[in-house]
């Protein structure tokens, strides 16, 4: 006697197992062709397997002075130099055009949206992802102490929208916010601030970046990056 259709489906589900749950993720990878957005920082790109993956929700988490903003600007710089359209959804209202210019970002290729809270920021991101055509969207969120965090369902929706559009959505936060919705979480911390001369001058920051979560099973190595402060004389 041949098995019933229900039994066949059950058998199929058993065979596929966890691969079935990764179906949308695999489809997204194939849609975006495994493309990555490099930061231009050799060690960080090596750590990430070439850069931040296209069509995924990623997160850079780190406290103040941990270098997360500098990393995001480096990412935008590489993308705009490649002629891509990018957006910076600045719910923290912290974007500094002078720093962005110094980081080599082509400013006309960045859409700067300054929402007044996280809810507006999520809606703005969803609208931009729906639009398609933006290669990279950075979402800079204010610290959780300042306002209520977005619910997990919102992150899931944004992750799905990013997968559908092929856009990388990179969230900047002080603490991890995206939970299991993100494909990649990079944690940053400040190793030390470098000062020089007498009278003293801020030379830059030495930061460390570590992959805290990666669906692709990246090694949890640490990359050290040296960031230079802009010259005061300039």
């Amino acid at each position, binding site marked *: 006697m041949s098995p019933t259709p229900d039994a066949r489906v059950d058998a199929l589900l058993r065979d596929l197992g966890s691969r079935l749950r990764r179906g949308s993720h695999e489809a997204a990878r194939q849609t975006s062709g495994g493309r990555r957005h490099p930061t*231009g*920082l050799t060690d960080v790109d090596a750590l990430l397997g070439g850069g931040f993956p296209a069509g995924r929700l990623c997160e850079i988490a780190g*406290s*103040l*002075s941990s270098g997360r*903003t*500098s990393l*995001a600007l*480096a990412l935008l710089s590489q993308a*705009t*130099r490649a*002629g*891509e*359209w990018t957006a*910076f959804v600045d719910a923290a209202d*912290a*974007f*500094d*055009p*002078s*720093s*962005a*210019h*110094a*980081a*080599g*970002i*082509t*400013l*006309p*290729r*960045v*859409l*700067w*949206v*300054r*929402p*007044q809270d996280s809810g*507006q920021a999520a*809606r*703005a991101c969803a*609208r*931009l992802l*729906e*639009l*398609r*055509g*933006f*290669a990279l969207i950075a979402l800079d969120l204010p610290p959780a102490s300042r306002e209520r965090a977005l619910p997990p369902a919102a992150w899931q929706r944004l992750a799905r929208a990013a997968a559908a559009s092929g856009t990388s959505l990179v969230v900047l936060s002080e603490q991890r916010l995206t939970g299991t919705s993100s494909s990649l979480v990079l944690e940053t911390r*400040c190793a030390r*601030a470098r*000062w020089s001369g007498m009278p*003293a*001058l*801020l030379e830059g920051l030495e930061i460390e970046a570590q992959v805290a979560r990666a669906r692709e099973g990246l090694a949890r190595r640490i990359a050290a990056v*040296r*960031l*230079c*402060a*802009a010259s005061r004389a300039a």
Partner: protein
Amino acid sequence: MARSGAASCACLLVVDLPRAAALRAQSDLSGRPFALSSGAGGRAEIVSVSPEAIRHGVRRGHSVAEARSLCAALDVQVVSPALEEAARAALLDAALSCSPRAELEPRRAGPYAGEAAVSADASGVASFFHGEAGFATALAQRAAAVGLPARVAVASSRGVARIAARRLEADGETRLLAAGDEAAFLAPLPVDVLDPDDALAERLTRFGIHTLRDLLRLPQRSLAARLGPAAISLAAQARGQCDLPPPAAPAETRFVESIDLEYPADRLEPLLFALQGLLSRLLARLEVRHLACDELTLALDFAGGGRDVRRIGVSAPTRELRVLARLAAQSLESQPPRAAICGAGLETRGAPLRRDQLDLFRPPGPAPGALAPALAELASLCGASRVGAPALADHHHPDALATRPFAPSSGDVAPAADAGDFRLALRRLRPPAPAEVQLRSGHPSRIRSAVCSGRVLRCAGPWRTTGGWWSRDGRFAFDHFDVQTEDGIVVRLRYDHVAKTWQVDGVYD
């Protein structure tokens, strides 16, 4: 006979403009008995009547009370000059969508007082519509698209085209008068179609001249001596000659839609409802002209006198009604009108929708047609000043902020950057966080603020920024320090010499 190479002109005619304007603003009046009166009250005169009301015996010239006695279900509204003016402009837009040269004919008195006519130059452009018949049909369709059913006639002159349009039976009909047929068409028509002045009309009646054929039979040399100089012009028109110049191109492009509210609106909901109607009519006009709305001016007339004129910024030209309505609502909610509103108007200059040339060597961005409404929606969500491309502020004030409209092009140049040199970014604090600072030898030694607190480990500075010294309100002077506190945070601290306060205005991150 064909008119190849010769001048030709089309007339776009709306016979009963007050009724057409009312129907354009309130489509729910269609199919119902309604009339327009010259004023409020039972004694006001009926100036326009719908066909449904005519079937009940209501006629122009009746008083409102009389009309209501003939038709109990009659909807009577006061005629609105604002709606009529907008409808006349919309008719001109319909004509300008087909021909670059079109003009509104001046208003007439007497039996033709209610009509609105636009003359459009058909010379040379008819070929774009597969001939004059196609041109006339396109004109009628564009007029219908802006909510005005119109009649269209094409002839060799403005005067003949207008007469031919008047002789059409129904809205939407078109007529072409070939050059050789115009005399035969005009001859049997009554002299009244040329709209002579009262004195001349009376003299013609006394002479027994009723048709244009009768007029042309008179000896032309003695016409002026017997009937006055106006008769010469009348005879020329009867022959199909017109002394009016061809229509000219409009000097400026401006789209205005306005409405007089029946009752003053003291709440936002009814006002927003009226604005939605204005916007939809404005967008229909922009659409036939292949333009979009780039910046809106909203004018509100207060019931007790006075006017509120406000500008509603639109970050990119769009024809999305939902987005523009939200922007208008946002403006009204943020700054509610100070009194009840009795009239509202919207004005825009119109701008072409953005087009983009794709680059062979660069990745494509969003479709321009989709980008503009998305930008407008983001502007309505966050505020028009909060969406754009960042730009370097042309000002020395550390808090100066500049944005430009977001419109990337293939010519955008990336700034020069040193290879392998990765810049430390500054996270701005807007507004700067107030700080309490203890000094030692003129340098910060301890900080307490919402961003960082504790003993200062390293400090660099100060760097002074001053400006605006010529202005009492605009002057500024800051001493900036780079400071690392014991909690590991490196911040940019400043002392404001004007406000005499310490602030943290950025964090190195």
